């Protein structure tokens, strides 16, 4: 299974000019994602996790270090990544004037895929995304979980080799969140995509990903890399094992150390 990485970040740093000096957001972030892997980034809030995704997506360029995105044999570096990854931001960002179907096909439409073909492809996936019968509904008629699944469908349909998920379940209530995690595990096995997931939920990171990168507080560095040894297919029940608890504790130790939380 070990193939060349789809995504390779090497010593990425990012700083913004601010007021008098500069604001250093990322100090030293190196990570690799291989084909078919889902990798999680976890860190204290405000540590720059979303900036990492913005840099990967090509919305921003790193101040130093390099980003290599290898898809279909070609490697794109600076200034060429826009349009090569599917980015799902924290908010669902559905266009309120478009129906479920209209929102889902947005990525394909932007790439110039014919509307008829795009619709067909979206319709074929509605069932998998728990949206059958809702193709013609406007987003404001949907629940939070459903809106999030429409955003997911839009992301997956965009047909990019790499998917970036920025706290996709952050805004959902605990129960919907657990359902969505289970659903994502199921989905991921089926679509075989490569992905980077940003989360602040240790359990979610362990449950969903092959590897967890624990980031420090701003400016972000990779503090720890945890390979998750849990077997696939995963299930929520694994969260109750001692192995899981030990992993969770080790990650929380690093995170709490960052935040200065006193150990009992």
């Amino acid at each position, binding site marked *: 299974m070990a193939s060349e990485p789809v995504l390779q970040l090497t010593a990425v740093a990012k700083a913004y000019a601010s007021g008098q000096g500069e604001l250093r957001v990322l100090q030293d972030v190196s990570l690799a994602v291989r084909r078919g892997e889902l990798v999680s980034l976890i860190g204290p809030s405000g540590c720059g996790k979303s900036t990492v995704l913005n840099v990967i997506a090509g919305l921003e360029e790193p101040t130093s270090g390099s980003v290599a995105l290898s898809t279909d044999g070609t490697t794109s570096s600076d200034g060429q990544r826009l349009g090569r990854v*599917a980015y799902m*931001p924290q908010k669902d*960002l559905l266009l*309120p004037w478009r129906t479920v179907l209209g929102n889902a096909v947005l990525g394909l439409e932007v790439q110039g895929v014919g509307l008829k073909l795009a619709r067909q492809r979206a319709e074929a996936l509605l069932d998998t995304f*728990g949206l059958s019968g809702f193709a013609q509904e406007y987003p404001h*008629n949907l629940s939070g979980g459903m809106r999030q699944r429409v955003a997911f469908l839009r992301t997956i349909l965009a047909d990019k080799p790499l998917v970036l998920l920025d706290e996709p379940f952050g805004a959902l209530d605990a129960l919907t969140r657990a359902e969505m995690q289970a659903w994502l595990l199921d989905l991921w096995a089926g679509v075989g995509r490569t992905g980077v997931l940003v989360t602040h939920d240790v359990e979610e990171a362990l449950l969903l990903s092959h590897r967890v990168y624990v980031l420090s507080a701003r400016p972000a560095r990779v503090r720890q890399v945890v390979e998750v040894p849990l077997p696939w297919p995963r299930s929520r029940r694994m969260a109750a094992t001692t192995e899981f608890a030990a992993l969770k504790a080790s990650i929380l130790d690093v995170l709490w150390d960052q935040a200065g939380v006193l150990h009992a």
Partner: protein
Amino acid sequence: MLKSAWDQPGATEVAQATPAAPGRWRAAIWQWLAPLLLLAALVGLWELLVRVFQTPRWLLPPPSAIGHALAANSALLARHALVTTQEVAAGFAVALATGVGLALAIAYWRVAARAVYPLVIASQTIPIIAIAPLLLVWVGYDLRPKVIVVALISFFPIVVNMADGLRAVDPEMVNMLRSLGASRWQVFRKVQVPGSLPYLFSGIKIAAAASVIGAVIGEWVGASAGLGYLMVQAAPRFQTSLVFAAVLVLSALGIALFLLVAGAERLALRWHHSAKRAKALDLNP
């Protein structure tokens, strides 16, 4: 897969979006009837008071006399109304074109935002009625000065609302589309234009009401036709009923224009109205 578990909560929510039909009809009828009943009562009171106190007709004619004047002068009124309508339509079209153009410049060109926007606002502090006579001197006695006055009065709400709408677009939405590989033009067409349409229509509705006022001001200052001209001619001759009849026609013109815009809005923004209805029913708190 997990389909059935998902379908249930969503399905009930959507069902709530359509309330019971009879209740909705009754509400709709009442919505139209209530203001009409009030209007009828006020008109009746007016008729009664004028008759009881025997007010002279040149001072305040009863509604029945106004109705009579309306019928007796229908050809005259129609002829002048046509002129005013042309002024309103032309001025409104000019306002729409310049308003949308300026809004685009303000939203996407920093220099224009800095330089033009303050001037646009300052232009509204100039009393139109003061420059209307100057327009007459500058461009002549015909339709043009009226068209300019209408445009000057109605371009402002269009510019301000449209510019606000274009700038209100969520930058994250723009980022999301760019990350999918969208060009600037695609972002503009797929997000910024549809997102600003509700704002644009709000501006157009205000402009529609104001544009009729503009035409009348233009005609008062100097004209040879139009409802404003007719009023200026009739008032000093104490043809007060005719003045009122002209006011009625003007008001009808304004209402017609407003309804036209509101209808276009309804067609263009079906999603927006359905969202407002959902909000009214407390679907999405």
